[in-house]
């Protein structure tokens, strides 16, 4: 007699809604060939909004579902909110990009929704098996999305590179999971923590931990596992690059934190040392390499590597202060980077056109509002008050100082001073320089205006009134410890 499994659909409803949305897109897209993209975008937006609504009960929960495989807690709630914001803004910024040359690539939205659903399973997972399957769902969708543009060889190259390197990193992650299973006899996070607390495992546990760390570092693009980032970010469709730099990174960091604090907490002394080195390497290399880029997508790619470094500082700082600072930072970064990539998508439009820094010359004269929005995003990336990016960096560095990592913070502040240079170079080009020839007029769609508006208002609002969001982040990480 097989017992009836416990099924609790309420807890995973947000992800289910996204899956259903993806199915509707796939079925309906094949029946309406003319305006498939517009229709799919609307369906995706509705799915994201509904998921947002059904996600809210999670905030009050603190329990486990599906025989302990999924944890429904405020942490899952906060991460889901982040991912849904990222997915929603990406849908808005993608519409124009996909319809530009008459190809109705409505499958884009289905894959985007499946990827987001995979991430949501991943961030609420309480078991490495669920984490891995969520990770693969998101990775496979994103590999395809990166290589989606049929007419662009660079996009194909990006897809293939990401697939091969991503496959390696998944295998390494799985190998680490196998070692931990060997130590603990279970893949459930609390069970692993319980075994490690007794001091069992020794070197085996350390090897497992190291391999998991490599797998996660690849996904968040931390140096020295960042090699794929510039090429893939450059080749992928621009709105998707924004999504990768925000949502994939947020999901990977969310799981990184959950696994390393909830399951590998007893080894914190060991992994903090490794992460300290990774944080320094990532911040320094990301910011220095960004200085010499002429292509804005590559520049933002290196900038996103650097931001992964700041987030790792939050992990090193550890415990509630560090992790809640990370969540706030991720929220700020979501609005900022999606906005910045939205502007890049708008200016660059299809393919490889207008992605050099010089193409931004004189933008302030032709489109003052757009230039202002881009400046806000760049200021926030650089960490200039009163934007959200400043508060994010401030809270992370504050947590690290309090935890006693003075040197790490000094390096972090110095590298972010370096970063001001390359962000301001774009601002200077927009406001101070004159283009050689008059650029073609930009085509603003309503969806793009809405997306950039949301992003710009978000950056300013959570930067000027950060208290509510900082409190939410603090409240969300409480259940982890």
């Amino acid at each position, binding site marked *: 007699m*097989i*017992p009836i*499994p416990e*099924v609790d659909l309420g807890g*995973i409803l947000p992800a289910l809604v996204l*899956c259903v949305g993806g199915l509707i897109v*796939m079925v309906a897209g094949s029946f309406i060939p003319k305006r498939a993209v517009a229709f799919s975008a609307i369906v995706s937006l509705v799915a994201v909004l509904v998921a947002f609504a059904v996600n809210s009960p999670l905030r009050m929960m603190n329990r486990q579902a*599906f*025989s302990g*495989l*999924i944890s429904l807690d405020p942490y899952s709630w906060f991460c889901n909110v982040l991912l849904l914001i990222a997915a929603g803004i990406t849908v808005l910024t993608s519409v124009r990009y996909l319809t530009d040359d008459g*190809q109705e*690539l409505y*499958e884009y939205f*289905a*894959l985007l929704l*499946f*990827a987001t*659903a*995979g991430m949501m*399973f991943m961030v609420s997972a309480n*078991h490495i*098996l*669920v984490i891995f*399957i*969520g990770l*693969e*769902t998101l990775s*496979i*969708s994103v*590999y*395809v999305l990166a*290589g*989606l543009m*049929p*007419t662009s060889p660079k996009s194909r190259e990006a*897809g293939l590179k990401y697939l091969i390197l991503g496959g390696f990193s998944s295998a390494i992650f799985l190998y680490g999971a196998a*070692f931990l299973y*060997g130590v603990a*006899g279970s893949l459930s996070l609390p069970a692993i923590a319980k075994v490690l607390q007794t001091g069992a495992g*020794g*070197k*085996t546990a*350390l*090897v*497992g931990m190291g391999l998991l760390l490599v797998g996660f570092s690849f996904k968040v693009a931390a140096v020295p596992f960042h090699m794929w980032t510039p090429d893939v970010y450059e080749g992928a469709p621009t709105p998707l690059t924004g999504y990768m730099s925000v949502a994939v990174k947020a999901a990977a960091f969310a799981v990184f934190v959950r696994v390393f604090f909830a399951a590998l907490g007893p080894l914190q002394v060991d992994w903090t040392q490794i992460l300290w080195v990774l944080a320094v390497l990532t911040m320094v290399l990301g910011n220095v390499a960004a200085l010499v880029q002429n292509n804005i997508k590559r520049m933002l790619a290196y900038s996103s590597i650097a931001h992964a470094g700041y987030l790792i500082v939050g992990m090193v700082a550890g415990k509630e202060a560090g992790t809640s600072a990370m969540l706030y930072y991720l929220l700020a970064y979501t609005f900022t980077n999606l906005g910045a990539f939205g502007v890049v998508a708008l200016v660059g439009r299809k393919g490889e056109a207008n992605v050099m820094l010089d193409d931004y010359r004189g933008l302030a004269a032709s489109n003052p509002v757009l230039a202002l929005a881009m400046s806000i995003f760049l200021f926030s990336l650089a960490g200039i008050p009163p934007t959200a990016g400043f508060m994010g960096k401030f809270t992370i560095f504050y947590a690290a100082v309090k935890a006693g990592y003075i040197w790490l913070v000094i390096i972090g502040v110095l590298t972010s001073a370096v970063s001001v240079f390359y962000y301001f170079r774009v601002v200077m080009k927009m406001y101070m320089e004159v283009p050689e020839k008059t650029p073609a007029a930009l085509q603003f769609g309503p969806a793009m205006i809405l997306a950039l508006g949301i992003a710009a208002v978000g950056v300013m609002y959570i930067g000027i009134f950060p208290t509510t969001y900082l409190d939410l982040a603090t409240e969300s990480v409480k259940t982890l410890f």
Partner: protein
Amino acid sequence: MKEVIFYALGAITLVSAFLVIFLRRPIHNVLFMITTMIGLAGLFLTLQAEFVAMVQLIVYAGAVMVLFLFVVTLLNLDEIQLPPDSSTIRWWVGAGFAIAVAILIFPALVAFLPGAEPKSLTADPTATVSNTAIIAKELFTTYLLPFEIASVLLLAAIIGSVVLVKKKY
């Protein structure tokens, strides 16, 4: 007796794996890859993991490697003989890296050797229920959710592969 079988299978797996790397004709590489997979399946059997052994045979030795063979024969790669690798540096880097990983992993692997730890991770040979039945039961009760998420994963993969090769343009 058990040791003899173990070492024989281990030798088959390892030698075939080396030949996969060092032979210079694609068709030979693929064929020895299949032998490696079969050797591994045998090793799983000696651990009483008959389900994993069968999956190894059906999925890897069967489905995956047959696809490789199709690619090799359809592209007429079977007639190609790759020239010997001219870069000796690359050879040494590869060998050094492999040895480094082995040294790194080995201390951890020693912990799993019989006698090193009292806890045995192999299945109980006297168990009355086959582990195929146990896996099936677990899959549809405890691990129902990941099983279902895997369907989303496969759907995304199918859509992705169709989209990437679709010729509409």
